[in-house]
């Protein structure tokens, strides 16, 4: 059984027939070939598939695709701003926060949701926000540093533009 799904994906409006039992992760990876969202556990326990739905971070492996009707979905492919790296992406590169990189897209989506809500988080707030996104390589410290640096960076930019 399929169902008509209309949604805004990374800024583009889409209308497509989707099997009713598909997860958002299946839709993104299998149908739309947006491979940036990672498949780590399909149990909602690792955070690798984190995407934003109406700005809220969710686990794409647990969300049924058809529940995104009329929603705004943002994946890692939609994080760039005007074709340039988002300051979080640049901060991850600069801080050496990327090792194997499999958790990175999910971490970035979670971190961008955090900074949208709280532009100047403390280190503990960053840790708490990322606590459900597992990383086996980096030991997290540089990821936390990168998020704090990006927050600092964007604060400086917004102050400069005032």
């Amino acid at each position, binding site marked *: 059984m399929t169902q008509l799904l209309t949604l805004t994906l990374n800024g583009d409006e889409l209308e497509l027939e989707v099997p009713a039992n598909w997860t958002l992760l299946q839709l993104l990876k299998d149908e739309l070939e947006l*491979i940036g969202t990672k498949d780590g556990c399909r149990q909602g326990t690792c955070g690798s598939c984190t995407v934003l739905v109406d700005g809220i971070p969710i686990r794409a492996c647990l969300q049924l695709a058809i529940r995104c009707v009329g929603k705004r979905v943002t994946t890692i492919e939609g994080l760039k701003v005007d074709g340039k790296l988002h300051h979080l992406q640049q901060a991850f590169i*600069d801080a*050496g926060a990327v090792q*194997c*990189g*499999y958790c*990175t897209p999910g971490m970035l989506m979670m971190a961008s949701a955090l900074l949208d809500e709280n532009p100047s988080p403390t280190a503990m707030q960053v840790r708490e926000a990322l606590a459900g996104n597992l990383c086996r390589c*980096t*030991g*997290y410290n540089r990821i936390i540093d990168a998020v704090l640096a990006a927050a600092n960076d964007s604060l400086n930019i917004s102050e400069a533009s005032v």
Partner: protein
Amino acid sequence: MADSATRAESGSFRYVGKPVTRGESVDKVTGAWIYGTDFKTQGMLHAKVLRSPYPHARIVSIEVGRARQLKGVRAVITGADVPFRFGSAVQDEPFLARGKVRFSGEAVAAVAAVNEEIAREAIDLIDVEYDELPAVFNSLQAMEADAPLVHEDIEQYQIEGAFTSYPRTNIISHTKIRRGDIERGFDDSDFVYEDVFSTQYIHTCPMEPHNAVAQVGADGGITLWSSTQAPYNFVRDLGNAFGVPYNQVRVICTGVGGGFGSKSYLRTEPLTVALAMHTNGAPVRYATTRDEEFTACSSKHPTHLTFKTGVKKNGTIVARKITSVFNTGGYADTGPLVSRNGAFSGTGPYRIPNVWIDSYCVYTNNPLGGAFRGFGVPQLTWAHESQMDMIAHRLGIDPVEIRMRNLFDPGDSTCTGEVLDVSVGVKDTLRRAVEVSAYEKPVEPSRTSTLVRGRGLATMHKLTNTPSTSNAIIKMHQDGSVNLLCSSLEIGQGIYTALRQMVAERLGIEIEHVRISPPDTSYTPFDQSTSASRSVFHMGNAMMRAADNLTEKLCQMAAPLLECSSDLVEYREGAVWQKNSNTFLSTRDIIQGHFGPRGATVQGDGSFTPPSAKPDKETGQTPKASAFWMYATQVADVEVDLETGRISVLRVVAAHDAGKIINPNDAKGQIEGGVVQGVGATLLEEMVVEDGIVTNPSFAEYKIPSAMDIPEIVPVFVETHHTGGPYGAKGLGEPVLAPTSPAIANAIFNATGARITSLPITPEKVLQALRENDSSQPTGGETIENQQ
């Protein structure tokens, strides 16, 4: 001194030793980097696997008729369809179970269908009748004479390695190390202490599950897209298993989302290839579920470790006898090699004249043990560093002092008789760790009286896979830019960047002009594996030779163009110069001058195999067991809640002798990530196996550290210069987690007097130990002989 050699060289490099930013990170932060689980190809089928629910059972019958008839199913296979075995040390593992199953989670049948859903449905339609057999789970019980046999026919297996196997037992390998006279050593000791330690199952937990896509052409050629750390292991092992020439097995490497050893040897690939042999050329994809990761892919071996150590009153170690037992589960996988590797480092980085080690790898009906970052060394380090502090405490000697008394100096030899003549920085790792951690100063106390703090340290050494070979080709284009063709894998450790730095340095060209060609066994030459902390040293050396071969060819081509003999020209920074003159030819001038105006490429070829000598099977003695030795000391500060037993690690100072550091940024990243893995292994992680069944096969139940669980980490480098390493480098990836566990255990003892000898250290164990301490002697449990 090694240190002065390093100083003399530092500062003169343009790229080596500099924190060059990784090139591939851009693709990783945008989601463009293609991992195995992202890979797709035309007409791809999807596989699912039926796995045994029983740890040990005879397969009475398998009925696949209904599954085959399901619409959308393209192939259903069982062990009867694939009469092959594979295995990296022992060829004991069938592609799919045949006759009986030896662990719960063993693959029994596999399906390929047009989508995953149909494949899963087909799996449910397969009926297997089992007849349960008596099983054995405990490794010590498995060694007893009347234990149920996991494998009845060990003598028929092809076995490689310097160890002994015992048919009609569960002992698949016995590694022996004999040095000096052990009994006399104990007689000469003032005290002899015997202590028992144990370690648990720890899963590698790569964030990317194991996966493979296989396609078999009409000519029988096998193509495998794989998230692997060791494509040439796959070529060899699949070639051997199927009996096809190695050049018919093409392994194309995808991005790797974490390996930690678990992607070095065949696991999901054999049955994926077997399915692809039954699909008329259609490619087949198989990716494990997270549940299968835990139950069917290998974990760090649990071990039982008995350490008997004889010492003088002043703490000098005279003799050490070790019995280590590695539980490898239903199949050997890398078990015999892991067990041997652990033994070779088992006495620790200490000068001990009398050594006797028996290291056993034992079959049971448990899930598989296998390669995990450290390859047996973390288990033995847990024991020797815990016991070191226990002995220090019993003798009333400071933990630093007892180590300094026994640690290797240059010229000392290991338990396998190898004389350590270069890059022996172990004492410096201890000195630096003590200094940076302000070890002598007491830990700042907690403000709450029920929270007590303590500090502990641990020192270790590790060998690398020896001998092993790396080959490299550097292909220079006429504009002077180069591709490095090699089969080292970027698995997150930063090897691509380190290699690019070294190539640019050696050739004197811009790092932007160096690109790594993606590993593909059709094109990129042999490399043993991306494991054992070996890539910088081995591939670095191969790359240097390839670069020198390339520049030599350019000189030979340039000489006639410069109208002089080739001994009067030299290569420097992307050009060939006439010696003692300002005349030079650019690579474009040379290549076009030699080949004509349309140009060509010039290839330099390099191969590196370090010197080595095979260990004696009966004594383990060899003049060269390892191409290099790595050393480390870590100091951990902990806080223990006396009411709940909860432990927090506050800080870890990690001093490592990895030789010359090629990229300090990435090297620190290895330490930070490794220490956190070590914290997880010490306090959080245990794959619980009850009667052969994994009871916590998910991240909800098996907890790896999260961003909330991490200490402050202070990396420190002791850059000894290894004369055989590229720019003096050795390796780093594995030692980073090994000292963390005993350093934490020693810190807990320092804080509370509770000595925990079995991993993981749970709050329950701490409380239990505290209760026992209240009712007995604080160091209870040890056997003391020879006490005078």
